[in-house]
């Protein structure tokens, strides 16, 4: 394979390209879904192909093929596309400098998830479902496990050649309870499950069975619970919801390609602009410390090298509330006269890399969870994402969570509410943060379906957080009929 790739890179150099890379990606997925104790679907998917990206006289072309025998034609096509791009080009694409790297990387795993018998995986899900269904109000249960192995080769005209073997594992369970015409869901470990770059040991550690009965009972209580009240409340947002809060209102706004307008017509732009670095813009309170770290063990946004061939590392994004950096690629970082911080990633072989989140996390604070509750006279503890929406500048967000736990006079009362919704304005919300729980409560949740780009791409990212307190948050909506 190496000789074939190097042959085409040599050809591209002879065509006079400024830069070219070839990626071979071979992805194998096992996806197991159960419902009501029965196998719903088990699918094994494989997708293998080659993507070739060239920059010719400052213009970009990308072509891809599933057929290695078409690799040369694909290289020719990529050059032709780059020539067409020149017709409408104001500014030549440049790339930030980087080191040439020849290396290999493999996700550290204890148990190859593809070596575990299918029966064991199915039994784990169906036995967990049985435990959830012990509660008579639980009318439906679901379970899912997904395992992925991705073999990648990245080679470029700057003499980098990187081979990666990446594993992902994860899953989750959900109980649906029905009462008097209403249906409510409770999920574990999060809605849609939780996923990481790891082997089967990650699924074992999720301990689905030990949590199944509790989730079933909680669904039953939830469907009989009162509707969440509306108004301004102090809230503590649990880690399983913080993950999407960070994702939508920090992760996406700090993508430098979005800030430059690359996504303007589709996913949108950002209220963040590059001058905010010099302005020392206050994104949040002093409790808000955000890091993009692609090296967190087992986190879903962890890898060896991005698709620019940049080694994974950590970058401070927000320090004590002040914005310090964006997430960048070589072609965006160079505009700020910076090196790339290694977040350029493509979905499979058939797409170009674009700036994607890695593991964007809020660092833990000093509070015990009880201390966060203790500072609230009348509030809510919001847990497990149910719905999300945010505007095209990432300013106005609205989230629904599966459950809200009542906080009165500084402690949880045991009362729960269904259908909680909260909304806010991004910088106002993050500036209302006055406490983050400590490292003992810090958890990472993987998001395996982050959408961006045209054609649409899905990225696997993650967010670490501890439960976090926010003041005067709008809960509920005005008359949703």
């Amino acid at each position, binding site marked *: 394979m190496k000789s074939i790739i190097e042959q085409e890179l040599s050809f591209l150099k002879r065509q006079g390209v400024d830069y070219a890379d070839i990626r071979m990606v071979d992805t194998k997925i096992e996806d197991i879904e159960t*419902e009501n104790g029965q*196998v*719903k*679907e*088990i*699918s*094994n*998917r*494989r*997708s293998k*192909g080659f993507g070739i990206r060239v920059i010719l006289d400052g213009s*970009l072309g990308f*072509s*891809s093929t*599933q057929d290695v025998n078409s690799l040369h034609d694909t290289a020719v096509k990529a050059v*032709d*596309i*780059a020539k*067409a*791009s020149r*017709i*409408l*080009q104001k500014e030549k694409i440049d790339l930030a400098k980087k080191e040439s790297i020849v290396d290999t990387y493999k996700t550290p795993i204890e148990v190859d998830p593809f070596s575990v*018998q*299918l029966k064991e995986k*199915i039994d784990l899900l*169906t036995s967990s479902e049985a435990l959830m269904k012990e509660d008579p109000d639980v*009318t439906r249960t679901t379970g899912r496990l997904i395992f992925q192995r991705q073999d990648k080769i990245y080679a470029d005209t700057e003499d980098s050649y990187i081979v990666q073997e990446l594993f992902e594992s994860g899953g989750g369970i959900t109980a*649906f309870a*029905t009462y008097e015409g209403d*249906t409510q869901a409770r999920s574990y470990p999060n809605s849609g499950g939780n996923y990481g770059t790891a082997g089967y040991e990650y699924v074992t550690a999720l301990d689905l069975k030990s949590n199944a009965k509790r989730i079933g009972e909680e669904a039953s209580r939830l469907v009989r619970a009162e509707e969440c009240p509306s108004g301004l409340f102090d809230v503590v947002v649990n880690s399983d919801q913080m993950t999407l809060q960070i994702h939508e209102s920090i992760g996406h706004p700090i993508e430098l390609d979005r800030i*430059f*307008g*690359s996504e*303007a*017509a*589709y996913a949108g732009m950002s*209220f963040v602009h590059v001058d905010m670095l010099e302005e020392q813009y206050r994104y949040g309170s002093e409790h808000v410390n955000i890091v993009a770290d692609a090296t967190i063990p087992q986190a879903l946004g962890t890898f060896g090298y991005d698709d620019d061939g940049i080694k994974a590392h950590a970058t401070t994004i927000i320090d004590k509330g002040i914005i310090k950096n964006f997430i960048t690629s070589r072609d965006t970082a160079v505009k700020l006269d910076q090196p790339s911080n290694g977040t350029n990633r493509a979905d499979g072989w058939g*797409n170009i890399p674009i700036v994607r989140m890695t593991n964007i996390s809020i660092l833990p604070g000093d509070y015990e969870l009880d201390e966060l509750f203790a500072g609230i006279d009348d509030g809510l503890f919001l847990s497990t994402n149910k*719905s*999300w*929406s*945010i*505007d*095209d500048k990432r300013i*106005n967000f609205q989230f*629904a969570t599966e459950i809200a736990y009542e906080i009165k006079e500084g402690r949880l009362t045991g009362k729960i509410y269904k*259908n909680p919704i909260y*909304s806010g*304005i*991004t*910088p*106002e919300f993050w500036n209302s943060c006055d406490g983050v729980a400590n490292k003992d409560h810090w958890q990472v949740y993987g998001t395996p379906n982050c959408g961006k780009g*045209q*054609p649409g791409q899905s990225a696997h990212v993650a967010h670490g957080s501890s439960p976090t307190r926010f003041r005067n948050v709008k809960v509920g*909506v*005005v*008359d*949703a*009929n």
Partner: protein
Amino acid sequence: MLTKKRAYEIIDLITSHTNYYVAVDITMKQEGLTRFANSEIHQNVYNDDCDVKINLFGDKKISIVSTNVLDDAALLEALKDAENKLEFLPVGQLELPELKDSPEIVSESYNDSLNTDFDTLKRAELLKQSIDLLEDDFIAAGAFSLKNIVLAWGNSHGVKRYVSNSSVDLNAMVMHESGASGYIETSVSDAKDLDVITEFTKAYNKSKQGLNPISIEPEKYDVILEPLAVGDILMFTGYIGANSKFHQIGMSCFTGKVGEQVMGANINISDDIMHPKTNNLPFDFEGHPRQSLKIIEKGILRNIAYDTITAMAESKETTGHSVGYAGEGGIPLNLVMEGGNSSLEKMIQSTKKGLLVSRFHYMNIVDPTQGVLTALTRDGLFLIEDGKVTKPVYNLRFTDSISHVFNNVVELSKEREKTPGFFGNLYVPAIKVKDFSFTGKTQIES
């Protein structure tokens, strides 16, 4: 381009090498997409992929393996994997009926001339001509693509299906440096149906109208929703309101309401598989012929869409709306909403105070059981006063229910437009809705 002959060869190779009942579906997509932002091409890509999915049946079990490695050896290896996996699966509860004695379905709409008329060079040239017309303080962003798609299906009983489609898709946002923007989105299968400059001009004009917006408080307003905005709401209505799975698990706002009045008497919605403005996909992913459905007739929920598993649960026949064998329910993909006698202009004239909504951003379901949706307005929100559009407005968030929206439609336009859906297109009018609930603003108070 995957020809019918080659697709059927792949199907025959697989079906002839197993004693199990097997259904094979093949998806091929070739797409060249030119993406532009800040009035220049910044991404320009081509992808060619073909995926073969083997669905193997036995002992009330289904084993599914898919691959895009298409040499004979790799395909037979995938088949072997499916057979081996089947043996390890627990016996299921349902024996899915095998599809037999069903005539071949072929629909070939591949348009080779589009490959010439809209190749990479032509797309770049057309974009340049359009963007050159913009004044210096306006920029354009969007995507201009050419797609060829083939879906083929076949099984052990010799049942075969093949459909090919070609389309040219353009979406473009023209934006003033102040942020005021206008947007168009269109999809055609014939070169004569697309005038790129005309489309750009529509977005350009709307962006000019959006200069110097005012801020208003979120509350209930009468709204006029342009087709792109209506299309988004209808897409989610079909997904949670007309999907048998959502009904059966109690997660639809219309659960138990088939035969009941769920919308105003002026609302008629169908899933019309023959409608030329929607998608050419005459069979579903179980190989069943797709049936047209009257979903809403004079506001009454008449029919919902089924796949085989959800149909069997109610002792019914599938309507041919499956997306696979997992029992995800039927999903209507050819949604068409009947228009009325009004027009966008008449709706504006009849509005004392209201808002004109161009389109929505990031719509999502807040609560499926109540049919509550939320989204932000985008690329043109305008205040209407005394029958005239008077001022552009900063974007707002709405949170409202499907039932409320479609029970409060007071006017529908005669003109209808294609709008994008989860898969392909919908065909919808503009509508005027009373008391639409806006619940949030999009400005940072500083």
